[in-house]
């Protein structure tokens, strides 16, 4: 009997299923409709559609939107906050800021726990950890009585300065647990022992409101999977780019606030490595938005500054994803000043682009691509037909007539503006952070990524563009490619110049004990455990920090200090050897290595001519307008073939544009690599080829 690994990415509309056959190395992908009210159903449907039984599955990993949806829709359990007297409104006052500085009607979202459900107890710890006021047991028992009457299902405990001393929090948890044994309770000191009350409280609250939801979800899913015969762990992807098992999910529920979004970044990292690149920008372009991530020297950028809704930060380290409102469905319009704009409004799924004939009359990027011949009128193997006339009419009325352009020039202008907006976003994550895009490969996927990828790369002078074999389900694939991962973090302030290395070593050893016990809970064998240490540093007097790795065990801080200087110079273009350096926080990344699939290399078979579906006229400005362009069926293109643009490559879930002057190569894994200047970027690939060997 064959053995399969199954990865599932549950999205808002579709559930993507990616099946990997361990014996043959072959891949099967499918999509089913998502079932938001009981998400496990969509997954089981997908598994059934793949004709798999549970006992054939050796590993099941997935990304889920259960947490994200619950937060956004406020479908949360009855939860309460217990905090230090005088501070129940910290989560409502926040930092006081607004995302939209100018629109007085664009509000910050409501707190996850209403004021009526926020309670206070007398207790106080000072900045040094000294307890100024002990917990009053009678008061807490009285509070428990009230909370019971209110039928509270979940409690977040967050006290002032609990990041230095969590004793009072623990005591209150103990008492509440005695009084309310069935209620989910988490404290800020066990969730995220870091300085700043709002950020810590917000993270603890998200943990508390999601705890019961994701715990129940995992239990149900586990039950259902057992029923169909699956014996293994249920792996679930978290925002940090690793997976957890059901053992640790309840404790770190907030890490599932954004589960699936990291999958695309992980997939792009893997795909880039597979093709021999260690620097890559991932571009996951869908219908309404585009997610962009960046990997440098094989590390995906990590941020601790993220949220599901602005104002309510979640402090766990997370893969940095830049999301912009640009996608296939973004609307094109002329503003009152006469400027051609693109997005952020989107036609969404309904009415959708004009060519869908669902009532849309405004032109979208999809309409422009259709008018330019880049998209064919038949999609999804003929399951869907697009109406080109409708697109032309929309573009004519909304854009062309106002710019005195013909409809093709207008469509071309629409795509250029859309591409320029995406380039701005690519600059944000690269140039603005001190990375030169010319050192990177662009991994373009999602429904619309392959249509735009090559032109973005040209604009940004990115030498290579990779289109993975299955661009539409790349995120699902990402779920198969991750390790178990936890992060143990801590606020720790010290002068880097004078701290004793023994003291720092001791701190790390303590943190690693916790990290190891987490990995043990996940069932990771000691030989598969890998611990990486980081320190957050800054020049004395600065406010922001940069995170750099330190040796394990610690011999000296010199390397880390030099790495800090270098990183500061790379990101901000200057370093200051004279200034003192301060340590601000510590982090241990605990990785439990999971066996990765080994994808098959294919042998070439057939000819490129056999893959030719048709030729059609496609508009390229650089060719002076429409040119006859070959359209290939991706599944039939032999591996290792190489051809020059202009060309269009069709596949079930995506269309790839190979512009004039661009060459496309198909590698043995069926990735397509496009580049404008032949030879450029080859050096980096050579240098990185060892990495790809290591990966597999």
């Amino acid at each position: 009997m064959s053995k399969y690994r199954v990865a599932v990415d549950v999205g808002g509309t579709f559930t993507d299923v990616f099946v990997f056959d361990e014996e043959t190395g072959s891949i099967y992908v499918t999509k089913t409709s998502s079932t938001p009210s009981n998400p496990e159903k969509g997954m089981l449907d997908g598994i059934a559609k793949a004709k798999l039984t549970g006992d054939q599955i050796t590993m099941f990993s997935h990304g889920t939107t259960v947490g994200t949806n619950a937060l956004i829709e406020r479908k949360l359990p009855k939860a309460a906050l217990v905090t230090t007297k005088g501070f129940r409104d910290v989560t409502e006052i926040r930092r006081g800021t607004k995302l939209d500085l100018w629109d007085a009607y664009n509000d910050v979202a409501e707190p996850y726990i209403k004021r009526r459900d926020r309670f206070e107890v007398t207790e106080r710890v000072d900045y040094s950890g000294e307890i100024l006021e002990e917990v009053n047991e009678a008061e807490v028992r009285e509070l428990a009585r009230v909370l019971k009457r209110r039928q509270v299902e979940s409690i977040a405990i967050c006290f002032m300065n609990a990041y230095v001393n969590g004793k009072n929090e623990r005591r209150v948890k103990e008492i509440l647990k005695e009084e309310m044994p069935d209620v989910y309770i988490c404290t800020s000191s066990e969730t995220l022992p870091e300085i700043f009350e709002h950020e810590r409280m917000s993270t603890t609250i998200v943990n508390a409101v999601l705890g019961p939801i994701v715990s129940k979800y995992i239990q149900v899913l586990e039950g259902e999977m057992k029923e169909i015969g699956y014996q293994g762990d249920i792996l679930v992807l978290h925002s940090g780019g690793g997976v957890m098992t059901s053992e640790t999910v309840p404790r770190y529920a907030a890490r599932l606030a954004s589960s699936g979004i990291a999958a695309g970044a992980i997939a792009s990292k893997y795909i880039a490595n597979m093709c021999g690149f260690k620097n890559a920008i991932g571009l996951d372009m869908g219908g309404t938005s585009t997610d962009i991530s960046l990997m440098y020297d094989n590390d995906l950028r990590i941020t601790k500054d993220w949220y599901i809704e602005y104002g309510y930060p979640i402090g766990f380290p997370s893969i940095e994803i830049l999301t912009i409102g640009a996608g296939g469905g973004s609307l094109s319009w002329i503003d009152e000043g006469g400027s051609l704009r693109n997005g952020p409004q989107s036609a969404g799924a309904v009415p959708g682009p004009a060519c869908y004939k669902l009532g849309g009359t405004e032109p979208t990027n999809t309409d422009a691509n259709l008018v330019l011949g880049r998209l064919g009128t038949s999609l999804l193997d003929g399951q869907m037909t697009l109406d080109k006339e409708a697109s032309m009419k929309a573009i004519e009325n909304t854009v062309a007539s106002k710019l005195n352009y013909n409809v093709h020039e207008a469509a071309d202008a629409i795509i250029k503006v859309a591409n320029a907006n995406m380039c701005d976003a690519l600059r944000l994550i690269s140039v603005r952070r001190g990375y030169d895009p010319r050192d990177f490969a662009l991994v373009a996927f999602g429904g619309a990524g392959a249509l735009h990828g090559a032109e973005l790369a040209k604009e940004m002078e990115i030498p290579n563009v990779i289109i993975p074999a299955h661009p539409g389900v790349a995120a699902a694939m990402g779920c198969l490619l991750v390790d178990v991962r936890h992060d143990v973090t801590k606020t720790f302030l010290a002068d880097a110049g004078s701290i004793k290395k023994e003291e720092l070593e001791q701190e790390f050893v303590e943190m690693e004990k916790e990290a190891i016990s987490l990995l043990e809970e996940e069932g990771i064998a000691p030989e598969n455990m890998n611990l990486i240490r980081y320190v957050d540093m800054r020049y004395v007097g600065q406010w922001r920090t940069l995170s750099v790795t330190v040796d394990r065990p610690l011999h000296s801080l010199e390397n880390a200090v030099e790495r800090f200087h270098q990183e500061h110079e790379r990101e901000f273009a200057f370093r200051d050897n004279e200034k003192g350096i301060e340590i601000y926080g510590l982090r241990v990344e605990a990785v439990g290595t999971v066996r990765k699939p080994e994808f098959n290399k294919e042998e070439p078979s057939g000819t490129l001519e056999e893959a030719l579906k048709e030729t059609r006229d496609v508009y390229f400005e650089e060719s002076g307008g429409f040119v006859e362009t070959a359209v290939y069926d991706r599944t039939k293109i032999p591996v290792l073939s190489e051809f020059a643009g202009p060309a269009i490559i069709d596949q079930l879930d995506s269309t790839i544009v190979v512009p004039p002057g661009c060459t496309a190569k198909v590698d043995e894994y069926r990735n397509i690599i496009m580049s404008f200047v032949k030879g450029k970027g080859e050096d980096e690939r050579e240098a990185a080829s060892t990495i790809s060997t290591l990966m597999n």
Partner: protein
Amino acid sequence: MSKVFESQLDPVTFEVLKNGFVNLVDQMSEQVLRTCYSFVIYNRDFSSALCDANGNTVMQGTQDISVHVGTLHLTAKAVIEDFGDDIHPGDVFIINDPYRGGTHFNDTRIIRPVFYDGQLIAFMQVNGHWADMGGSVPGSFDVNSKDHYGEGMRIPPVRIWSKGEYLKDVANVLVANMRVPEERLGDLRSQAEATKTGETQLIALIEKYGLDTILTAFAEVQDYVERLTRAKVAALPDGEWETTDYIDMDPEEGDGLIPIKVKMTIKGEEIFYDLSGSHKYIGCFLNSAFGSSMSAAYAGTKTFFPDIPLNSGFYRAVHVELPEDSVVNAPWPVAVTGFCSGAYEKIMNACFELWSHIMPERALACSFNLEYLLIGGWDQRSGYNNYFMWYDWMAGGHGGRHERDGANALSPVFGVGLSIQPCEGQERLSPVITTKHEIVTDSAGPGQFRGGCGVEKGGILTDSNDTVMSYCCDRSRSVTWGIFGGLPSTPHGAWLNKDKEDGQFLGTIFSNVKVKKGDTFTRPSAGGGGLGDPLDRDPQAVLEDVIDEYVSIERAKKDYGVVIREIDREIDLFEIDEEATKAERQFIRQARIGWLEEDIHNVVERYRNGEIDQLDLIRRYGVIIDQVTNTGLPKTTEQNREMMKKRSLAYWT
């Protein structure tokens, strides 16, 4: 819109460059945020701009603080005016002069000219609020200064890098006059490097598109914003609207609000503001200089056109007339450091009110104003022996809106991107323990759509020596007001040892008040003003507010006429008494016009007897008292009642 795009550039190049300029400016801002040393900058009190060779702003940052809007071109022009042809590649200039278009001394601008092929083509500017500029008090906010000499270091346009060479001596003479000079040098470096980033980005654009195209785009991006603004204004009816807002007082004069008059005219495609009739400048630092006052009018306008980008094109369609020697156009050397709590936000809120009449669907009642408390002294905690500065500002309530309550606990209108600081960070850095940081029940101005709630922050001083406290805000008398029938919120002012026998109300502006270990202090931020008649508020909404303790049962009855009975608070069980509510609303409707006429002495007498409380004075009787002496202020009350009649009474039925 049938207007055809009039441009020498094709629409794509235009749009790409316009967005490219935004990107470039935001990139400078981002870098400053990540490398600065002043915690005020770190909390987002900064802005950046790309100016053309004439100093006009081509693009300002999207995340910039409102208060700098419309002033960056003035400081770029000041550099041009002073240096003329003597500007060279590799030069960098510094300026903070409010009498040359700056805002106040702390807002220090670093300006880098950009050259291409020997031609001056642009200026990159980054403006950040430096934490200290010297002067008599830490933080450089001395409320007792009547002129700028006591306030801090005034920097006219000064060259600080010459042809690439850092002028260390010049920098030293500046920062030697400031507290913690090495931090200021850090800020200088951070800002100068950020302008360099902008320069690099601009040169890259020139190399790609050519110099001519970029220079054309500089002009056209300004034309575009002007055209966009004119098109939007043309669609509005012509007319004239006017209103008055007030600063609490001139401390030298005593009783009497200080009027700031704002008349707005829309004529065709243009907007004209005229502040004639505003009071002469006053004897404390709440005045503003011309740059800040123009900024207030621009920012107040922009709030109603949130999607217009900011550059000099906008300023071509919006005109501001400021009377000489007034509180809104204070001449050198009158003190203006506190302008933000003073004249600035009065102009801004007045603009909000005027625009609320023109665009009722975006209406906004008055919001709380910036307040900041500063405690400075010697930290004597175990292991510490250093000078500390506990420098704190709060979030507060914003005004009620069309069909929506005002926002609770938001940063002040002069910069809603300005973060308040975490108490845990403050407790590490200073011998001050925060005892509460919470929303204040009944702080919201009542209205059919109430204002947002204000906040109170209290603390206790621990081990310290030689410590003093200063405070800067306003609106303890000119209380944050409602519109369209809405009511005012709550007065500002700080307390020392409030719950002790020697408790003292210190008011809204004071400096160098001595404090010692064990002293407690507290102060509220106001709620926002209400919008619409509070008697028209849905009783169910009042009930929800009572459950959340945003509103007390007592004030639900007094302010909204909604009678609520508590059944079981532990499980949120309350009941609206429909009959009693009807009767109460009827009673208030009949009595309230009379309350605003009642003799001030009688009202104050009843207040002193405890028959009525402070919120009754403000919300029912329109009577303003001196909170230190608990005596009535006849002139202030008269002015206040006049205002309430226009903003509130006129809309009651």
